[in-house]
């Protein structure tokens, strides 16, 4: 901790030297100190931080207070060295009546979407933002729903209209014959390859994608709004399951549990930690299986062999998780301070079930690899397409298999351990290809690593001779002290899944912001897809493995 503290002091000094009037105050958040920056200089502060190694902007969240609005930036250091990991927050205060803060989207491109979201839901304007529009709600929406004063009962009108070619003017200047002839096409919200309800406003030049703009919000389910009206202890927990609904529910629950447990200072017994780890890794296996299957589906366009095999294996994992939690998909298994049930009885039988699965897995992985890498045509399609350079990925805040497929070994489980990961033996999988293939390969590798963790957890649980305590003593009402806030993240199936909670001393969070990995990954999509063929754009979309419950929340 001392290293980190010293580093924080150094960086603070540096900013004060370079930008004399930029720092107004220093606040203490649960996860790291927060620099209260001058709202008009916040981009300079973030730039200095970026130059000094804080190269990952996790999230931007807007918080409403009685007398002001706050825009909170969470920055992290991404390095391969675990000792080097560190985080810092930046806070900018905005006026109550006309909240406005300087944009940081010129420093981190990934901030673009985050700030649009803050504007959409909270109404904080970002000055000099290149594209200050609504992102989740329809353009015709009236009011900013996360504000206290928002009248939920007012009538709203939403429309369905055809979209115009956004780059038509760009080519209109050039009236001669060499002018590019483009076609605008709406892909989605109903399209077989969008795996949900994404709308891509695509401009095609022949078969080549010249411009693509994702339009999201078709599955915006007001998760943050709902969570802010529910109590910490029981009511919020079912909702995380529905963010990343591809069986990754256990990890999502962990992300919420981790944040509030740190904030409210709740211990988790070691036995429950092991169960949590086991459950999370099983979730990850199921989630990655679906990612591989649907990637193949995008390339084939038919219910093909890889897809079917992936689903066969998912069924097994879902059955194991069902034995544990009683549910196939929406587990609602974790509790603050532990888990809800002990392992299913007879536990030997259940362990045997898991063992059978993990023992067969290497054989199955070999088959997947043959089907994917042994297929000449598939390799031709997947290799060298959807290139995402590591620098660009960091710029946009991409995390998870996407970032690791670009050769950056950032894994929250490794750098900022939680649950029981610290005690276990496993590796971070990275690939240097930066293309669709390496992203899929990373997922296949991670399935194997997860199986390793699962095996170790089963061994530990089998030999457990201490007290089998599944939940620590949690006070009847969980209410962290007023004014405290915390941002923590876990390694979700899709990347860094972070939660930012601001407490006002009651049983309900004042602000609960979900930092969704898919949201950031998708914001880099136009970088990946522009200049590619239409077919490759679809494959790239598949390799990003998006879940719209998490993108739109």
């Amino acid at each position, binding site marked *: 901790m001392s290293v980190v503290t010293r580093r924080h002091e150094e960086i603070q000094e540096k900013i004060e030297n370079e930008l004399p009037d930029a720092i107004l105050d220093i606040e203490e958040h649960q996860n790291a100190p927060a620099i209260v920056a001058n709202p008009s200089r916040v981009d300079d502060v973030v730039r200095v931080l970026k130059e000094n190694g804080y190269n990952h902007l996790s999230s931007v969240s807007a918080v409403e207070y009685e007398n002001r609005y706050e825009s909170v930036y969470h920055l992290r250091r991404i390095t391969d060295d675990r000792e080097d990991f560190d985080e810092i927050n930046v806070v900018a205060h905005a006026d109550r009546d006309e909240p406005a803060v300087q944009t940081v989207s010129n420093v981190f491109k990934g901030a673009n979407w985050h700030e649009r979201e803050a504007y959409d839901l909270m109404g904080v304007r970002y000055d000099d933002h290149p594209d200050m529009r609504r992102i989740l709600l329809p353009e015709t929406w009236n009011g900013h729903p996360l504000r206290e004063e928002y009248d939920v009962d007012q009538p709203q009108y939403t429309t369905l209209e055809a979209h115009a070619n956004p780059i038509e003017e760009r080519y209109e200047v050039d009236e001669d014959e060499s002018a590019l002839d483009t076609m605008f*096409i709406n892909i989605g919200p109903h399209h077989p390859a969008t795996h949900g309800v994404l709308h891509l406003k695509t401009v095609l030049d022949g078969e080549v994608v010249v411009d693509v703009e994702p339009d999201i919000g078709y599955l915006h389910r007001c998760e943050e709004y709902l969570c802010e009206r529910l109590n910490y202890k029981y009511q919020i927990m079912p909702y995380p399951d529905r963010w990343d609904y591809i069986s990754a529910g256990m990890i999502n629950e962990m992300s919420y549990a981790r944040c509030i447990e740190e904030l409210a200072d709740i211990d988790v017994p070691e036995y429950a930690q092991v169960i949590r780890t086991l459950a999370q890794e099983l979730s990850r296996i199921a989630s990655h299986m679906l990612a591989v299957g649907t990637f193949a589906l995008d390339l084939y*366009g038919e219910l*093909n*062999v890889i*897809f*079917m095999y992936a689903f066969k294996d998912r069924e097994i994992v879902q059955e194991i998780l069902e034995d544990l939690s009683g549910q196939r998909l929406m587990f609602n298994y974790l509790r603050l301070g532990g888990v809800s049930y002990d392992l299913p009885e007879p536990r030997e039988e259940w362990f045997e079930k898991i063992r059978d699965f993990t023992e067969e897995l290497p054989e199955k992985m070999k088959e997947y690899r043959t089907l994917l890498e042994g297929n000449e*045509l598939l390799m031709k399609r997947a290799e060298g397409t959807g290139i995402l350079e590591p620098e660009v990925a960091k710029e946009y805040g991409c995390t998870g298999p996407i970032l690791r497929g670009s050769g950056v070994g950032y894994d929250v489980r490794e750098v900022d351990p939680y649950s029981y990961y610290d005690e276990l033996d496993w590796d971070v999988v990275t690939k240097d290809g930066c293309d669709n293939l390496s992203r899929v390969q990373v997922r296949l590798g991670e399935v194997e690593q997860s199986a390793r963790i699962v095996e170790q957890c089963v061994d530990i649980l089998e030999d457990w001779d201490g007290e089998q305590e599944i939940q620590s003593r949690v006070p009847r009402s969980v209410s962290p002290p007023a004014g405290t806030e915390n941002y923590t993240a876990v390694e979700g199936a899709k990347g860094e899944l972070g939660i930012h909670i601001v407490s006002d001393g009651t049983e309900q969070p004042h602000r609960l912001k979900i930092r969704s990995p898919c949201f950031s990954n998708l914001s880099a999509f136009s970088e990946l897809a522009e200049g590619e063929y239409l*077919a490759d754009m679809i494959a790239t979309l598949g390799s990003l493995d998006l879940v719209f419950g998490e993108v739109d929340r």
Partner: protein
Amino acid sequence: MVTFNDAVAEFFGVEEFSPLVEFAVALVGAVIVGSIILTIVGVSAVWFKRKLNARLGDRIAVNRVGPAGLFIMPADALKLLSKEVVVPEGVDRASYLLAPILAAAAVIAAFAFIPFGSGLQVADPETGLIFALAFASLGAIPIVMAGYSSKNKYSFLGFEREVAQAIAYEIPLVVSALAIVPLVAYFGDTDTPLRMSEIVAAQQGPLLGIEGLPVPNWFLFAQPIAAALFFVAILAEFSRNPFDLPEAGSELVAGYLTEYGGVNFVLLFLAEFAAIFFGGALFTALFLGGGSGPFLPAAVWFLIKMFAFYVVVQWLRATVPRVRIDQLLSLGWKYMLELTFLNLLLTAGVLWVVL
């Protein structure tokens, strides 16, 4: 080999029919061939395809509707025919409604030139091979009509792809088929080597005319390179996997089919599957010795070989991903074209040396 009319004339011991009877007999022949084709297509497109795909993916597929799910065929047909016919606003009506009929008609008419054996061949002109290949390429035109008239951008992209694909693979298809013509002339000892029945007849002896060899003189063995090239070209010509770009399920929703429903969809779907069988029939006649085979009648052997071709095509569908448009075109123009011409020259050269 004789056409259906000749066979009937022989059966009745008649030298020559009057033109009217000739026409009536030809019509009967056409009806027989047409019904065989439609039955096969009906069975394979609706039921067999599902069962086969399910088998490859470890599933069961239809088994509740009738024995082994066989009644799914009338059910599907009745349901699709009874659906509302939607003609979207702003389509080119004439072209939109004509395309499905033309598609189905073109591909079924093409079967007239196929020598099924056992006297089942409706027409056997001197230029039968060229006719058959011309009908094979005709299938692209209804797709263009359908895609262009639908007023849907996905359909539009689908037909654009079809045009590029049809043009790129037209020449390889014809030239790879032509490579067997010298062989037909040589082995069949005939003046009309483009006649379909002569092509089949030339494949009946032992391989390369060497007496005593247990392998038949199928051009698959005598001309393996041409057979491989022809197979690839026919897959591309009829846009089957891995070249199913005009339909491209995951990219273009349903490609040129997007705006079609009900009876129009049935016709296009039927044309699509009949085209696979037409490809199979061509391949069988050109490279698999037509109806040659032991014990069973020639027509039965022919149908078995056609079905085998269909199974291979469906197998590819379940296991091979779609290629990209640039990969497809570069394969067509850069490799297929050169290889087919090289093969033709090679064949001519070898025969020149031998003779």
